């Protein structure tokens, strides 16, 4: 487990040191609302290691204890791979927290900016963030 998450630490450190924004095939504002940050804590049910975005599916318990099915958009596999992620970095059953932003057109879709691992390490997930806070201006916001 320690080895499996080492790459995450490197990736996260690289991002936070350089502050290099990641990239989506679309403008951030075309899909997500920067005014609606969200934190999702749940169980990974599926990972799609696909272009143009990696998708992480999460089951998240709501206030009543009912499981809600969420999907989170991340960066492209190319970008994540060069930062240290692999297609096996996350698997069904992993407990994670995803910090990101709600989609404009769907109430169970979010843009993931950062994944917090069970041991508390925070790692960048290379999600669409042209226009995210502190990043390049996006005229659509």
């Amino acid at each position, binding site marked *: 487990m320690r080895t499996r998450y080492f790459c995450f630490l490197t990736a996260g450190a690289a991002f936070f040191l350089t502050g290099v*924004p990641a990239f989506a*095939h*679309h403008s951030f504002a075309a*899909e997500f609302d920067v005014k609606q940050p969200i934190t999702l804590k749940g169980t990974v049910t599926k990972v799609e290691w696909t272009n*143009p975005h990696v*998708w992480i599916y999460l089951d998240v318990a709501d206030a009543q204890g009912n499981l809600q099915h969420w999907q989170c958009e991340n960066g492209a596999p190319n970008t994540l791979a060069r930062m240290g992620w692999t297609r096996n970095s996350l698997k069904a059953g992993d407990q994670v927290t995803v910090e990101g932003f709600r989609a*404009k057109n*769907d109430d169970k879709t979010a843009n993931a900016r950062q994944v917090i691992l069970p041991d508390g390490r925070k790692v960048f997930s290379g999600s669409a963030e042209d226009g995210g806070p502190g990043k*390049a201006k996006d*005229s659509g916001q």
Partner: protein
Amino acid sequence: MKNHFRPYLISAMACAALLILAAAASAQSESVAPPVERNSPRLPDGKPDLTGVWEIPYVPDMSKGIGPLPFTAWGEADFKAYDPAKFDYTAHCLPSGLTRQMNTPMPLEIFQMPKRVAILFEAWNTFVIVPTDGRDHPKDPDPTWMGNSVGHWDGDTLVVDSIGFNDKTRLDTIGHPHSDQLHVIQRFSRADPLHLAYEVTVDDPKAYTKPWTNKRVFTLKPKWELMEYSCEENNKEVTEHLVK
């Protein structure tokens, strides 16, 4: 007694071996100094060789660092009205257009031949072919997403001149506009063996009152290979109507 001295003996032997290796390396570097480490490589025709996989910076806003762009009234009105939440063509996996393609942070690979240069882009897995055999643009080319490019050498700088664009793209992610009168001039020069100086000039009399130039630096990545990028593979933005 024998065991007591053994570590020292091994250390001494290791030191001697290192000294011999260092001396050999030193002699080698003096006799066959590799010029490639000090000078940028050149092709047999004498032109600087731009071949390689280059890491390119993400430039979502081409005005950053150069101030407000010299908009015409049309250009300014179009930029102010642009809202990617209403429509962003790249979310539908349509081609980025030349400048927005060069602005992506995914690497590109240049293959240089004496009469032709190919630029392969990882993002969208697309390409630009640049003839450098002295030809001019075709007359009245059909408008395309990536335009028509021809190149020539200005000393050690490759100059790529592109026209013939359609008006369906944006210059960058934040949506700086252009028209079908867009004329793009790109200048590539090897600043040093590991870096490529890149300048892109945007000339579009419908959108801007005068040409303007954005500069950046590409970094050689000898160990990188371009990867597959299928924008349509799992584009849930469109299939699940997450974008318009």
